[in-house]
């Protein structure tokens, strides 16, 4: 059963709650407050739903931060459909932004499309992060190898194997070991 957090902001949510109850979704309601991020981290819902006129800058900043710390699908029903608001909501990585679109019949579809989109985005983000890390690791490994070549008169092959042995001895990745070598070299710089 889905567990959704409804964040209230002065709009009557009875229709939304009834539709969710009919769809066999468990809901918890909270008022938006400065402790929003901490509350969400504590509750760990499957998704967060907002039904509001327009998201405030504070809320969007919180969502942006939440996305960095504890990413969750966010579904936002709003009456403000201005392009500026939509742009800000997208920057805060809201999974679904529906303008005047709170329709009980469509709610099930909107939620599940948002969940699927969020999942897909997370896969892409993780892949991007992994590629970035690999690229950064490769740069650091090349730098560490260059240090070993310059200071120890190693060949490139010897430098690589030394780096690999050091990493294996410590049970850490080659990238982490490269950073240690660079840090050590920086000390003597």
């Amino acid at each position: 059963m889905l567990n959704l957090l409804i964040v209230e902001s002065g709009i009557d949510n009875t229709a939304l709650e009834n539709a969710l109850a009919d769809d066999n979704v468990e809901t918890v309601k909270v008022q938006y407050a400065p402790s929003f991020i901490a509350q969400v981290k504590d509750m760990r819902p499957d998704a967060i739903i907002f039904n509001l006129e327009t998201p405030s800058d504070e809320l969007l900043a919180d969502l942006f931060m939440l996305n960095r710390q504890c990413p969750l699908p966010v579904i936002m029903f709003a009456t403000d459909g201005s392009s500026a608001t939509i742009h800000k909501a997208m920057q805060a990585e809201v999974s679904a932004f529906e303008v005047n679109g709170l329709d009980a019949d469509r709610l099930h579809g909107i939620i599940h499309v948002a969940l699927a989109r969020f999942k897909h985005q997370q896969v892409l983000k993780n892949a991007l992060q992994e590629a970035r890390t690999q690229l950064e690791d490769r740069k650091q490994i090349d730098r560490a190898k260059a240090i070993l070549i310059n200071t120890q008169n190693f060949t490139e092959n010897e430098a690589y194997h030394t780096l690999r042995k050091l990493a294996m001895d410590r049970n850490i990745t080659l990238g982490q070991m490269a950073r240690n070598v660079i840090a050590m070299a920086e000390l003597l710089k």
Partner: protein
Amino acid sequence: MKTFIKVIEIWIPDKERTQLEFGSGLYGGLTEFKHASEKQHFAYDEGLPGKAWAARHPIVLSRFEQSYFKRTSAAQKAGLTCGIAIPIFSGDFLLAVVVFLCGDDQEQAGAIEVWNNEGATDHALHVLDGYYGSLTQFETQSRQIGLPKGQGIPGRSWETAMPVLVEDIGKATEYVRSGDALKAGISTVLGIPFVNGDERAYVITFLSAKSTPIAKRIQIWMPDAEGRQLVCRQSHSKNSNNLAEIFETLTVNKGDGALGRVWLTGMPLITGNQDESYNEELDDLSRMLAIPVIEQGRLKAIVTFLF
């Protein structure tokens, strides 16, 4: 790896050379204490660095409360309880003061001592001052003995005017206090001589237990026989560190890199990232203090403390 030394600072004369200002420091995660320290200035004979400047020799302050220490409240909050200040002179003129601050938790066994003789007619070193934490029996024994040149780590350091590092003091029976040190849980001892050309000799000793080593690694670098390059003569850490060993095969020219600069200028130096707090549990080395050991204006050695 928790280390016995928690904070290291280098205080340097300001533009007018009448006060000491903050040069650099390693504070681990003690950011509040760092902020309280960076703003400080010490006049001659003021605070721990100023007192060391006036005394012209290393001094130990074994408790901060009701003392001349200027940052007692911040130090208490940071869990720092004792300090040692080492002035580095070029003739009559101060180059810098290195300050070590240590914590006083129950888990650590360690001591810092300053030994000296009373002048040319006194042929033995005695404890001038020291911090012993909970090692009260070791303190009593240490304060009662005198060490002539060549005896014990202070005596050997005095005789050679060189730093002396002994890794397993309990097994080194040639040292007078090895049995007492073993009983007190002390495993590693570092002695550093400070001679300013007068008849008095001063030797600082850092004594630490395996559980709380002095630093993550200690190295002693010395000029080679021709005085052309620095070479690493000795190093020690609680756990073996093959990365550090690779870098210890390097030779250093005067003026090159951090150690070369210490040789060139006679100034102590801190390198590495001083802003980030570091993980004391990890074996990686990312910060270094290098202290020159100078005799009659010539560099005898550089002692490095790596964290």
